[in-house]
């Protein structure tokens, strides 16, 4: 009981109290918990991120830092809950009788930061902006097979899909699908790259590229008392040691992606460390249209040469789960369990010689500096592949050079991807012939057909069957090698409350965060 009357009470001591014994918890009962959970207004949250923001324009976002900035400044129609369900954001409800024609009903009285009310006009203009090929939004292929978007009345948006598509609400939660005022989209669209106007919980105050972005509380935010914080600062730390030190010395409050090799030190210093399983994965990407990876057996051989347990231990200190080249993790609704892919050097060597691969040929592999797991996976794979006579030359490049020159272009590199909202979104992002980021250029007709079948299907059991076949194809033909899935590891000061990591790793719900 005293625990909760103490002003210096923290989340950490609270957790310790919980662990101390069930009796204490029973004694405290509901009033105690309610007190502990009553959020407090005010304060500045400083969150450090490792990746740089290339643009503030939400329609062009590709990385975590950008997603976070987008979520702070803008709202979408739909959010994705931590259980991967579609939940209301600007749309308070949605319905469809045939999964072809969808109606999204907007909240009334929500205002943009320029004072204008959010109406169906703005939502329709925003969806059209994402769909417009000229916008070049990664969201274009990911928000669903939309054929038309119209205003039904001031607060209702009608979306029609090309075929029955049951994943539309989840797909609309794609992080690029943010709502902007119509007049900004049709007028000064270029200003979104450096300024912006949304209806999100925070407003942009200052943006210094490569250094930080500062946001002020949006007092007109539609969701009750939220947000609780007065100010959010996103600090950009490309160097993970410096980032950890900033947390240790109190210069930041939350390291979004904590450096696993320093967790012990953080825990010692009283920092809270959390771990959440996710479908985030690094992948060894094979350009299937370029030699030597045109031959499936070469891809299979390299994937078979990898000792995955060793890779997981060395790259992540075990903070993850082993994958078997199937990019679908157990968190997804239609996960299909396939046999573990064990290291098999004999079989790998046999496949290589069948493929006529010249032993000792050197293949350059491109590695971006962040996150560090790319480089580590490169080193482990290099040593494993050397055992079957594949020489890999590691080419380290900085992240922006990687994005500009090698990503989606080179035939051999380490990719790194977030979990998606559903299997369909994942396949449409990376693996189908018309994927937004068709980096493997695998272009498998049978796979495309199966994905199309699944998304048109309304019966979940038939969807399950089609997606299972998809996963078997990926497992068999290995357009990319998925060695393991990462756990999301966050570290924050004990005064920070309300941080929950979403397995999809795009929604950070900072509007729920408060400081004690």
């Amino acid at each position, binding site marked *: 009981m005293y625990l909760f009357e103490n002003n210096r009470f923290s989340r950490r001591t609270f957790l310790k109290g919980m662990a101390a014994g069930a009796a204490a918890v029973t004694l405290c009962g509901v009033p105690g918990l309610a007190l502990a959970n009553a959020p407090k207004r005010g304060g500045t949250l400083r969150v450090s991120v490792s990746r740089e923001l290339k643009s503030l324009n939400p329609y062009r976002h590709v990385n975590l830092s950008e997603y976070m900035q987008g979520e702070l400044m803008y709202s979408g129609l739909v959010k994705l809950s931590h259980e991967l369900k579609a939940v209301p954001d600007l749309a308070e409800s949605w319905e469809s009788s045939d999964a072809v024609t969808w109606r999204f009903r907007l909240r009334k009285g929500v205002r943009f930061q320029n004072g204008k009310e959010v109406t169906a006009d703005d939502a329709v203009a925003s969806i059209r902006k994402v769909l417009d090929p000229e916008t070049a939004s990664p969201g274009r292929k990911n928000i669903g097979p939309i054929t038309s978007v119209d205003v039904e009345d001031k607060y209702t948006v009608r979306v029609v899909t090309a075929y029955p598509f049951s994943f539309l609400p989840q797909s609309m939660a794609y992080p690029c699908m943010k709502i902007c005022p119509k007049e900004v989209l049709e007028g000064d669209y270029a200003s979104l790259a450096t300024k912006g106007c949304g209806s999100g919980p925070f407003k942009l105050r200052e943006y210094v590229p490569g250094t930080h972005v500062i946001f002020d509380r949006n007092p007109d935010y539609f969701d009750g008392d939220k947000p609780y914080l007065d100010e959010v600062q996103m600090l950009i730390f490309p160097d993970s040691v410096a980032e950890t030190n900033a947390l240790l010395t109190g210069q930041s409050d939350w390291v979004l992606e904590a*450096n696993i*090799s*320093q967790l*012990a030190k953080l825990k010692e210093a009283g920092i809270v460390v959390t771990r959440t399983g996710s479908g985030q994965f690094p992948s060894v990407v094979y350009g299937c249209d370029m030699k030597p990876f045109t031959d499936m057996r070469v891809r299979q051989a390299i994937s078979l040469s990898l000792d995955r347990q060793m890779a997981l231990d060395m790259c992540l200190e075990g903070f993850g789960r082993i994958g078997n080249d199937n990019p679908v993790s157990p968190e997804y609704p239609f996960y299909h369990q396939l046999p573990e892919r064990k290291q098999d050097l004999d079989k790998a060597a046999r496949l290589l010689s069948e493929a006529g691969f010249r032993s000792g040929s050197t293949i350059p592999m491109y590695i971006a500096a962040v996150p560090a797991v790319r480089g580590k996976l490169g080193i482990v794979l290099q*040593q494993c592949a050397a055992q079957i006579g594949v020489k890999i030359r*590691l080419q380290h490049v900085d992240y922006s050079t990687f994005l500009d020159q090698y990503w989606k272009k080179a035939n051999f590199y380490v990719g790194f991807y977030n979990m998606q909202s559903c299997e369909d979104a994942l396949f449409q992002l990376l693996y189908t012939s018309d994927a937004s980021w068709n980096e493997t250029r695998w272009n498998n007709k049978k796979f495309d057909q199966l994905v199309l079948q699944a998304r048109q299907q309304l019966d979940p059991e038939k969807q399950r069957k089609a997606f299972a076949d998809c996963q078997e194809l990926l497992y068999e033909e290995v357009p990319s090698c998925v060695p393991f899935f990462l756990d999301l590891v966050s570290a924050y000061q004990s005064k920070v409350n309300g941080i929950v990591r979403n397995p999809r790793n795009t929604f950070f719900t900072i509007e729920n965060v408060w400081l004690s």
Partner: protein
Amino acid sequence: MSCIRTVFSTLRRYPSAMVGSVLVSILLIVAIFAPFIAPHDPLKLNPRERFAPPSVEHVMGTDEYGRDVFSRIILGTRTSLGIGLSVTLVCAVAGGLIGLTSGYLGGRADELIMRAMDILMAFPGILFALLILSMLGSSIVNVIVAISITGIPKTARVARSSCLNVRGEEFIEAAKARGERTWYILLVELLPNAVQPIIVEASIKVGFVILTASSLSFLGLGTQPPTPDWGLIIGSAREYIFEAPMLIVWPILAIAFTTISFNLLGDGLRDILDPRELGRV
């Protein structure tokens, strides 16, 4: 035999040269025979022995991939000395020629060349090297190119001032009067009489080059992992500074040892080759 005896008796009178040349010889031997000295494969991963403390099997312990640190340090000698000596050679040859030509020609050509060198020198060396490497991409050859470009101006200046001392001498005038070609005067008459300061400058330079190369690798712009390289080892061990602090200490000791060895040798050579000292030999 008498030649070797002269070298030894000279070295005995200059302790820093003595110590320097012994240490540098040790380094050269280690570099040449590195694969025979290293007890383990410096690239071999060993999942069961990560972060092992120093033992008989692993004298300096193992790193985050379970690789033997001692073997990596030994092999790293090759990378460091290789870069250090190649850059110094490039600088001495290119810088020497530029400086001698500039000094000998004098007048406008001299102005032009020296101002160009001044411009190169105006950039901080490591920044300039970083710039070059981010343009060319990271590889050992590019590291050598980048550090050489930053190092040439200094050698050129030394060579030029040394050349100015000799230029007015009568034997040069005599060569000119004989109608010798410019390149002949430069290489046969000038060079042998102006070469000592260039040698001294070069021997001191090796240490600096090794330091610069390590800094570049540390920043991820020099040699690429998993090449055993001291700067690179520090760079990757930094992440584990709390777990395994000794991982950083070993390569630092190696760099310090090498730099000091070459500086001692350079200082010694300077003393020996000082014209005022030469008369006493």
